[in-house]
């Protein structure tokens, strides 16, 4: 299995509080991704990174920001959490952005916002 660690694995917080999720990889892959998984929607891309300090928006980026200060770490921040952001969040990595390269996933963070 790819060396991807997500933390925390579970979190419960209140509306309006800031939340940061961490993804750590040991594979030295250039590309890192944050997805959310909701019933009936599969996984949807929030943001991705193509290098240190290089990030771009995905399909559902509103309300989220990201940062990547080191190759191995990719942080997802909810500045002011809302109940609609209750979801399971997955980090993924890939060696390149070529379309034939699979992504490898972490075990996810289950986030509940009350």
């Amino acid at each position, binding site marked *: *299995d790819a060396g*991807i660690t997500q933390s925390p694995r579970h979190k419960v917080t209140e509306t309006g509080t800031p939340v940061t999720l961490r993804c750590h990889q040991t594979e030295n892959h250039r*590309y890192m991704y944050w997805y959310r998984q909701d019933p*009936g*929607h*599969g*996984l*949807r*891309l929030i943001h991705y990174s193509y290098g240190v300090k290089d990030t771009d928006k995905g399909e559902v980026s509103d309300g989220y920001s990201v940062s990547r200060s080191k190759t191995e770490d990719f942080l997802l921040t909810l500045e002011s959490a809302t109940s609609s952001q209750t979801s399971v969040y*997955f980090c993924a990595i*890939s060696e*390149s*952005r*070529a*379309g*034939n*390269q*699979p*992504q*490898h*996933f*972490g*075990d*996810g963070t289950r986030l509940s916002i009350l």
Partner: protein
Amino acid sequence: AQSVTQLDSHVSVSEGTPVLLRCNYSSSYSPSLFWYVQHPNKGLQLLLKYTSAATLVKGINGFEAEFKKSETSFHLTKPSAHMSDAAEYFCVVSDLRNNDMRFGAGTRLTVKP
């Protein structure tokens, strides 16, 4: 833009019988197609991928899928289901220009004893 439709949200089979999980895709360019499996409280694990080589692709755990361009389909099959196959399965499409992956909504496979 590419998209994926998984035709069944839930499939139930008996142990030892064949499995068929259906996936249709849409893509403006030559697609790459993937199947992933997700067991409860785990991340997604790659089962197999198609990237314009052989149209019949063999994956892990006895699964295989056939790329049919004329039908825009990439159905996942297994000759004989095992209890450990019970999980959610995702069909994914991306085009060869980039790795903008689009996921289907998922198919939950139940295996009855």
